């Protein structure tokens, strides 16, 4: 396996881009990443995306997007793992370079979600759940996560107020991130009084619906030095899965897919949870973020909510988590999210992140998941 480096990053602001379609959003991020890598010429394209098929009746996304950004002729494919598609796309791009098939690979993530009313988008997102045994009953994605949130609060005695500390912090960070979708501050009271989406989950426990694209240029070691003064190494990648149906989980409060992916990524990078200085974790809902922290070994089981409420994982702590504002407030254009996370950590390591800055981290971690913590990727980066 060869070493792989991030040598270029590009992102679009996340929001409701009524003037841009899927292709132009993608092009904006992809061309920025190529420019950032001194005009590199990618030899392959990997795209993370979830909803192009269900919302836009568009498959064959790899070739479509490659051609649109001037890469006609290169091999291109889409990677789908529901809301975790972006992280899996990074893993796939990493593999192509590490295996020696290509020296320069473009990895992008793109999602266009704002064209349709919420129930339509909600139905498309619900395709991440089990169609025959969950979706058939009208189960929404927030409702499936609400099952876990209620169980978490009852099992560990976590209060609604403790749970609300997370979204408040995410909005504070996103307020300072020019790429974020929800750039406003909220209070604890706002979370408690927000409209209920699927009790106990409120609107302010949930990531917003938005459009966005992010891209990375990945390169092998010898090429990386030519394309960047500050290449960031992808030091370890791990992938994991769990049952898509919530009902047959061994333990609903033990995020198996996160644990499995993290164990591999830590081992391959030669690090432990205590070595992680900065992390971007998957907080599509408050409960998802908390269970992710526990599955990654960053918080003991059952204690993430309490620790967050006490100020852990904030700017200045170790690790500093979701300085971007997280899925909650930076936004969650689902198939692009995992690519945003890696781009953000790479920018933090270069000292160029335009929002809340980390304290010059050497080791960082990005984790995304699809479904109710069913498909997880963990990517460890090193400066």
């Amino acid at each position, binding site marked *: 396996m060869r070493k792989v480096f991030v040598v270029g990053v590009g992102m679009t602001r996340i929001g409701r881009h009524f003037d841009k379609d899927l292709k132009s959003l993608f092009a904006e991020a992809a061309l920025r990443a190529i420019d950032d890598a001194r005009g590199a010429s990618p030899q392959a394209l990997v795209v993370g995306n979830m909803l192009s098929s269900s919302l836009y009746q568009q498959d064959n996304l790899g070739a479509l997007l490659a051609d649109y950004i001037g890469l006609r002729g290169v091999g291109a494919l889409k990677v789908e793992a529901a809301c975790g598609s972006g992280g899996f796309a990074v893993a796939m791009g990493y593999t192509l370079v590490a295996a020696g098939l290509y020296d320069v690979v473009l990895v992008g993530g793109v999602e266009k979600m704002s064209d349709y009313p919420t129930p339509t988008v909600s*139905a498309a997102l619900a395709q991440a759940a089990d169609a025959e045994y969950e979706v058939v009953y009208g189960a929404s994605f927030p409702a499936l996560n609400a099952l876990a949130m209620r169980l978490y609060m009852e099992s560990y005695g976590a209060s609604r107020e403790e749970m609300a500390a997370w979204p408040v912090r995410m909005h504070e960070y996103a307020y300072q991130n020019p790429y974020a979708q929800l750039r406003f501050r909220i209070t604890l009271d706002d979370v408690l009084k927000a409209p209920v989406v699927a009790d106990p989950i409120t609107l302010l426990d949930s990531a917003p619906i938005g459009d966005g694209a992010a891209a990375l240029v990945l390169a092998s070691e010898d090429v990386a030095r030519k394309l960047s003064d500050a290449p960031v190494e992808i030091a370890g990648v791990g992938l994991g899965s769990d049952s898509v149906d919530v009902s*047959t989980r061994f333990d609903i409060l033990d995020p198996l897919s996160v644990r499995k992916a993290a164990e591999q990524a830590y081992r391959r990078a030669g690090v432990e949870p205590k070595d992680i200085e900065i992390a971007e974790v998957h907080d599509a809902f408050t409960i998802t973020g908390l269970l992710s922290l526990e599955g990654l070994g960053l918080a003991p089981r059952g204690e993430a909510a309490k620790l967050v409420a006490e100020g852990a994982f904030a700017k200045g702590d170790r690790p500093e988590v979701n300085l971007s504002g997280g899925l909650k407030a930076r936004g969650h254009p689902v198939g692009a999210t995992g690519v945003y996370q890696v781009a953000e950590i790479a920018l933090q390591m270069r000292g160029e992140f335009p929002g809340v800055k980390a304290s010059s981290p050497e080791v960082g971690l990005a984790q995304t998941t699809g479904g109710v913590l069913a498909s997880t990727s963990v990517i460890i980066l090193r400066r």
Partner: protein
Amino acid sequence: MKTMRISPARIWRERGTRYRLEASRCRKCGRVYYPPKTVCPACGSRDMERIRLPERGRLLTWAVEYTVPEGFRRYAPIILGLVEFDNGARVLAPIADARPEELRRGMVVEAVLRRVYEDGNEGVIVYGVKFVPVEE
């Protein structure tokens, strides 16, 4: 995107699991799964038998869904419950005939056959299992 497309073959295939709550039980380690699995996710055994779940179980956790996917608007709010049985299996299904404030962890619920949704005014009516609270 509409609600799940209905195909007679699909409904027919699922008749055992959907309407009779058939689960799979691992003959090696004894764990029970609903929906059924072909290989035991816990011990890896392929020696799985079909069993019917009991009709009564206990409510483990639930969500009260106000924002519902397209096609379910007239059924909102949907109470989605996770019901646990004595053999360890769980079933995810709507809770009917109950108000959200009456629900509590551990309450006994019973399976009933109910209408899940209708595919338009002249379309097929889809039935499925829901759970209702039982007087103790």
